[in-house]
């Protein structure tokens, strides 16, 4: 009966806990420093100054998001297990599923708010460059809408990564192990499409056995394809974005997140806290 309020309260607690974390201040400081760097960095280039500023702005958002998920997000869930505070929560008629969903919702809230702040700072740095320093050097097709879309897709990517992190947190119980595995999944998920491209290229660059090809294909469908969410180049060069791509990428992210959370829930339900 109290399913939704329970999830909501847990989400709020997780969010507040995350806000209190000093690392968040670090992320914010990084974004401010990057903003200053952005204004000076463009001086090293000749023509494509708009592209460079957008690159740096959106990369800052992604990098800050990654730090947030890997170093703060995963800590928030493991802390309860380490400090045994989870007993306190689960003894108050909160189911394990509600606990997991509440934690995830709170963390997503934290990620969205933080990304909004970092995104705003990066937007301001690009805006200053476009308005006062190098407006003519921006791509003809540049649009703030694509810029926003690239930011939003970064958030979807982080949501998927968070879900993957949750799954490994429930599987391992040790935050460091979960962090390492999640980082590895992120690295594989980013580079796997290129590996697949290389392996399955018509003109073979690499000599790969058929078994390896099959293995890479299977891995391609199992591992999260994070490169689908990357729209930074489109935003930087003012390239058109296919709405169909956005739709399928968001749907993919949502389905992957749901599956990961469901698996995490299955593992979490059977977990024994000692």
């Amino acid at each position, binding site marked *: 009966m109290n399913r939704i309020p329970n999830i909501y309260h847990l989400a709020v607690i997780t969010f507040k806990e995350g806000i209190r974390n000093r690392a968040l201040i670090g992320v914010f400081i990084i974004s401010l420093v990057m903003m200053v760097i952005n204004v000076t*960095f463009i001086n*090293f*280039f*000749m*023509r*494509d100054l708009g*592209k*460079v500023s*957008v*690159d*740096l702005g*959106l*990369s800052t958002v*992604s*990098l800050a998001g990654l730090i947030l998920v890997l170093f703060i997000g995963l800590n928030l869930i493991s802390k309860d297990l380490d400090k045994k505070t989870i007993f306190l929560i689960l003894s108050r008629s909160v189911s394990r599923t509600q606990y997991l969903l509440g934690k995830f919702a709170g963390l997503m809230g934290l990620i969205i708010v933080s990304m909004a702040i970092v995104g705003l700072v990066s937007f301001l740095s690009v805006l200053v460059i476009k308005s006062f320093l190098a407006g003519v050097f921006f791509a*003809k*097709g540049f649009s703030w809408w694509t810029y926003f879309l690239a930011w939003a897709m970064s958030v979807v*990517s982080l949501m998927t990564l968070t879900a993957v992190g949750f799954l490994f947190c429930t599987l391992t119980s040790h935050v460091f192990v979960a962090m390492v595995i999640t980082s590895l999944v992120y*690295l594989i998920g*980013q*580079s796997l499409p*290129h*590996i697949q491209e*290389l392996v399955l290229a018509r003109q073979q*660059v690499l000599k790969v056995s058929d078994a390896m090809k099959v293995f890479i294909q299977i891995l391609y469908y199992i591992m999260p394809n*994070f*490169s689908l*969410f*990357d729209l*930074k*180049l489109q935003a*930087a*060069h003012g*390239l058109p974005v296919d709405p169909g791509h956005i739709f399928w990428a968001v749907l993919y992210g949502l389905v992957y997140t749901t599956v990961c959370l469901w698996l995490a829930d299955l593992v979490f339900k059977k977990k024994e806290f000692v």
Partner: protein
Amino acid sequence: MNWRWVILIVILLAIQATSLTKLRIYYKQTEDIQRTIPLPPENFLKLIRLEFSGLLSDFIFIQAQETLGNRKTGEVTTETFNRVVSLNERTVAIDPYFLDPYYLAQALVWYSRGPEEIRRINQLLITGAEYRTWDSDLLFYAGFNHYFFLKEYRQAGDLFSQAAQIPGGWTGLAGLAAKMYHRGRDTAAGIILLKSMLLRTTDKEIRKYLEARLDQYQTMYYLESAVKVYQEKFLIPPRQIEDLVTAGIIPSLPVPPKGQKFYLDIQGNVDIEREAAAKNKGINK
């Protein structure tokens, strides 16, 4: 504040400054060796770029600029040339839409030592044009290199022709392409291009320009055909353009554009030049 802390900080800063100076000297001494270290392959860079393609390409491009800027003399050695082009190739392998590497590559053409180096840069420019489909500059640069350095007029004509067909490009490119085709002894290709451009152009001023060029190259094509007939009839090329009329191949010389004159160059090709320039060269004498 405790003085001991101040002294400690000063000592630490001094150590740091000394280390940096020493490292800088070491870096300077090994600079030449560092530049010979092979660059990572493009596929490796594509693997490690993750979602930071743009940022990685920016950093590699900075390295290309640094390599060019840090050369010891004004001269660009073959090693420096190859290193900068390789860095540019890697930059665009990661972000093929990035304009600056193409721009720097085109600047490097002036330091090239042979046709192979120019062809390498042209390959980079043409690959870039496949991605930057809205940008006529890269095709123009590649066409210019074919024309100016390689003296390959037909290829230059093809590239200028492709550039001319990009919407929003420079109107003069069509005329330039036709000129290249004419120089490459394929005036007909230039005429076809100008006619196709006219079919797609509604702007009055641009149409006027294209019509004038079309008229000019159609006349030159007419004269080229007359020269061929003359050669077939007399087995030698005409010595001057007026010979075509004297021999009865054409009834009269077509009227050239105002202030210009048709003439036969040393190789016997029909060309057009300003009257004053033609007189100075004594071409018609």
